[in-house]
């Protein structure tokens, strides 16, 4: 495969930013799937860290090939999602948020203490096996899958339970099961994003997956909106590019992310891209009077 020279230049100059756009897009989708069923998880940064650490260890210590490592890197995040999701999703929505919000900070303390994962120094020299096309292939696959699911009985059930969980249950929707499935999907997406980022920056440390990235991921989805799977990705892109353009204000980046969340919830509940996707498969919508 030959790459045209202009693209090669672009990738070389802005490679890190382009990769970050793809990875943050995946993280925004990890937030989207949970918000789309009317829940709030703040564990995505923690799931990302678990994917990054478990993926890096599989590469460094077990020397497994990357096509095994990448899918396997969601195993640990999913296990954590199940351990927290099963008990909390039987309860009201605040429990999942409360139980996940501390997860990142707790894991940070654990990483620092465990020599196997490099302690406070983190893990170095992770081979750079994730390239740009791989990141974007994952992103496009995730968007397409979420779009197809959105236009199906599952997508309708998801929107129904977000609007009114009781009414959805009366329609026959097993609300806790769908919510758990959404959380597991979120853990998969975040875990893969973590594994990809670990294998393109060559270094991971214990401080990258705590409270601040967790809230930043939420700001991606709230800025973009959750009417379609594209919207949160665009939110992530805006919030990833903005600090690149406004380097002088890097101290205030997190202040800005926090204010974005406040403003979005209070004044822009649909996000910047408020358009809501239909919930009926295209062919069925077109085929009027098929009965």
């Amino acid at each position, binding site marked *: 495969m030959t790459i045209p020279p202009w693209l090669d230049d672009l990738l070389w100059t802005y490679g890190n930013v382009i990769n970050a756009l793809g990875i943050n897009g995946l993280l925004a989708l990890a937030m989207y799937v949970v918000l789309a069923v009317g829940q709030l998880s703040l564990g995505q940064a923690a799931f990302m860290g678990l994917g990054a650490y478990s993926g890096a260890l599989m590469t460094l210590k077990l020397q497994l090939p990357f096509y095994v490592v990448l899918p396997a890197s969601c195993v640990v995040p999913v296990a954590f999602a199940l351990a927290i999701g099963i008990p909390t999703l039987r309860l009201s929505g605040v429990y999942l948020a409360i139980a996940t919000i501390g997860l990142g900070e707790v894991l940070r303390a654990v990483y620092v203490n465990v020599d196997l994962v490099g302690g406070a120094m983190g893990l170095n020299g992770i081979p750079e096996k994730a390239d740009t096309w791989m990141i974007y292939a994952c992103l496009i696959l995730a968007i397409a899958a979420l779009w197809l699911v959105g236009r199906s009985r599952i997508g309708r059930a998801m929107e129904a339970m977000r*609007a009114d969980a009781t009414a959805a249950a009366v329609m026959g929707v097993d609300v806790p099961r769908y919510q758990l499935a959404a959380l597991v999907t979120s853990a998969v997406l975040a875990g893969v994003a973590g594994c990809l980022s670990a294998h393109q920056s060559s270094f991971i440390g214990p401080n990258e997956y705590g409270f601040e990235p967790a809230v930043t991921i939420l700001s991606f989805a709230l800025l973009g909106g959750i009417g379609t799977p594209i919207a949160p990705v665009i939110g992530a892109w805006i919030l990833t590019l903005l600090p690149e353009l406004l380097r002088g204000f890097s101290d205030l980046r997190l202040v800005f992310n926090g204010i974005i969340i406040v403003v979005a919830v209070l004044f822009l509940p649909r996000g910047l891209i408020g358009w809501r996707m239909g919930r009926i498969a295209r*062919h069925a919508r077109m085929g009027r*009077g*098929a009965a």
Partner: protein
Amino acid sequence: MMLLETKGLTRRYQGLVAVDGVELAIPQGGVHAVIGPNGAGKTTLFNLISGLVAPSEGTLRFAGTDVTRLPTYRRAALGLGRTFQNIRVFAEMSVLENVLTGLHTTLHAGLPSILTRLGGFRAEERRAVAAAREALALVGLADRASQPAASLSYGDQRRLEIARAMAGQPKLLLLDEPAAGMNPAETAALAELVRRIAAGSTTVLLVEHDMGFVMSLSDHITVLNFGRRIFEGPPARVRSEPAVIEAYLGARLAAKLHASHA
């Protein structure tokens, strides 16, 4: 065999007994009504039947299955549909999408077939849309299919809720104060709709305050007072039952009823 049968159904809230040992036996077919003064426990009874509230005591059988411990969604799959006193349509979804949600239990496409659009997915979606349009036609909303549910008038939202509950062709349809907030013309149209539903394979159980509506429509009436059943029988006998008149109707309403009956 009874379609719905409760035995000693009881629900307590911190010292207050909302539903007190209610025995209900609803046979298949027809329109059944539960009436009673405010606070008699009617809505709690509906919530017990649909599984939104767990009973403190007693059992509940529906369509030959003991559903006392079954979660709401499983009861829906057995053929139990309902509407709500305060309208609960999915406001942002279109009218058609609302009704399609009501078909959830009849659709079975798995994730692989949804992701590939293969394995019968297309045919199933087409069937679902057709069934949803049929349900909309039943309530007279066929031409509103693509509008957002929130844009419908109050009365139309009530009809949409009925279409959504009817889409899956439930064995039993619970209507919680369907005529609330409707004008006389809308109420008359609603009565006609309920008759049409009951003429099909769906049994109707309703809670309603509008006595004219209940009396003209129901085959069978249960009266609750303070969570207890105080009467059960045909509408003709409710009017003459002293316990009901005393406990529920009161002198003024009773007179009004006689006047409307004369």
